[in-house]
């Protein structure tokens, strides 16, 4: 069944891409600076946070600008993918009611839209890497796997949220609150060391925390990822995806009636 569905999705690859790309274009269609907004947005965020945290709070971290920027971009992806994804079904009632293709295509393509936006943002990060002459080691080969895990977690969450949002519209508000909580509970602005040792275990139950930490280690600090972290990421992202799909496919038959 899974294989059959994957084949079906492969047949629809063109549609997934078209939907993702048109959504991406639409995001910047009526703004003068256009795509540059996706470069400016994290940059402005970075400046504010950098000023606050490195001067006022005296955070002492090597390459703190990069540390911060990578955290912002990765968390930004999760937040954007789940937010766009959450509205991918309720935002397209005419398509849901008038035509059929596998409904998860809406969600997948919205995650790809978020990915496109984040890839764009990453250009800033690459420029920073070059500017600060950060040495790159072979450990960067872990990065694609880590980022893939992030994508899968986001997709799993988006699937669940998009389906739940059809039936319970307050999911969107709850999720915004949870994202805010997550932003501060995840080591984005700070290192995990600020937590007491016994609390760190709990922080590390959050797969996004491990993803961000490992991404920094391998991309900025030239150190290898821990096998334990990689395993945890792999397992947890798989669980997110499976649970997301189960919720989605349970609710999917009612979409056209409920919207």
């Amino acid at each position, binding site marked *: 069944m899974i294989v059959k569905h994957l084949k079906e999705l492969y047949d629809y690859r063109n549609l997934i891409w078209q939907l993702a790309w048109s959504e991406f274009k639409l995001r910047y269609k009526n703004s003068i600076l256009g795509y540059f907004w996706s470069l400016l947005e994290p940059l402005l965020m970075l400046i504010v946070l950098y000023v606050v945290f490195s001067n006022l709070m005296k955070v002492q971290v090597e390459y703190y600008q990069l540390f911060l920027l990578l955290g912002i971009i990765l968390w930004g992806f999760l937040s954007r993918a789940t937010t766009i994804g959450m509205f991918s079904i309720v935002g397209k009632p005419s*398509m849901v009611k008038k035509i059929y293709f596998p409904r998860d295509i809406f969600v997948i393509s919205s995650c790809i839209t978020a990915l496109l936006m984040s890839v764009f943002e990453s250009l800033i990060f690459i420029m920073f890497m070059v500017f600060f002459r950060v040495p790159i080691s072979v450990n960067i080969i872990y990065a694609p796997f880590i980022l893939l895990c992030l994508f899968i977690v986001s997709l799993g969450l988006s699937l669940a949220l998009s389906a739940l949002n059809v039936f319970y519209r307050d999911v969107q508000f709850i999720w915004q609150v949870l994202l805010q909580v997550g932003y501060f509970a995840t080591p984005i602005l700070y290192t995990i060391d600020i937590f007491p040792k016994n609390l760190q275990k709990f922080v590390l139950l959050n797969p996004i925390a491990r993803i961000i930490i490992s991404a920094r280690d391998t991309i900025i600090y030239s150190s290898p990822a821990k096998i334990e972290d990689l395993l945890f990421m792999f397992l947890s992202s798989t669980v997110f995806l499976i649970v997301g799909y189960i919720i989605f496919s349970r609710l999917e*038959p009612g979409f056209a*009636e409920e919207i």
Partner: protein
Amino acid sequence: MTAIEVEHLHKTFRIPHEKRTTLFETLTGAFKPPTYETFHALKDINFTVEEGEALGIIGENGSGKSTLLKIIANILRPSSGKVTALKKITPFLELGVGFQADLTAAENIKIYATIMGMQKREINDKLDDILEFAGLENFRDTKLKNFSSGMQVRLAFSTAIQTDPEILLMDEVLAVGDMEFQQKCLDVLSQYRKDGVTIVFVSHDLGAVRRFCDRTLLLNKGEQLVLGDTGDVIDRYVYGGGEEASTSGSQNEPDEVESDVNSEDQNPRWGDKTVEITNVEFYDKFGNRGSRFNSFDPMTIRIFYNAHKKVSDPVFGIALYSENGENLFGTNTELKNIEIDTLEGKGHVDLMVERIPMITGRFLLTVAVHTHDQKPYDWHDKQYSFDVIPTGRDAGLFEVPCNWKI
């Protein structure tokens, strides 16, 4: 070979009395189970569509036609029963699904064509053709929001017809747009017919159904009334087969019309009622009562009277009006030189219409009984109505018998 198979299909919608769309409402209402109105949209539908066949689905509004089509298209799921489609389905339930106002014509064509299942290369090849066919070559990079609605429909239509469907589901797409557009749609449909595409066609346009569909399914309140040869099924629909007519027949019509006429400050009924007209009924070619007739079919108008006193030499008459109140035709027994000696008690007179010459629309009927010097016994002004359903493609109100000679 069978293309679509529908077996024991049921569809029930649950319509909650109070809708809970938020989690909060669901939690607070957890101990108070929600009350539902269940609505049986489809009841035990069974049919198959053979490959290359065109099946029409007709019925009143709310009879479940569109629901059935959506279930075949896999947009809605059956409550029980099974629908099997053995070929790829292309639904034309609405034109321009997924159109984005902020994207250009070319971009929208690409998205829409992809949704309709076309391949990338095919789309790129046909892009110019599509724009040309829609007459929008010069607007390739214009945003859709700057298009008139007519242009948008043209764009959607020219894109949609580029698809190469195996099974085509069509729902009232013809209903939008002007005559020229409808004609274009019908031409495309004929082309698909010739190419051997399996078509399921839902329409109120019985003329189109008659021309395109081999077989037709008649739905009434979610039930499958008849499935068979298109001509027979349309007759059944129009003439109701007895059961339908008794509920929506002429009996109910006077109330509706009465309110119309009353608003013009006129009592629609006058006369001293020495002879009272008690009812008027319409009968179709099968002898069933009804209020809907195919154009060019025969019809009988039966006037029931009750003469309270013995009356000698009364005149029965009728007048026919269009829906806007124009007098189209009038006649009476005097004009036809028919003498009625005396009338007493209850009875009826029939006016036989050999062939209804009207093409389409609703028509109002005045019936009256009066003396030779125009003193009315009972006059019902535009109190009765019937509908004429088109069978051909001629336009207008009336058929004028004619032939072309070239």
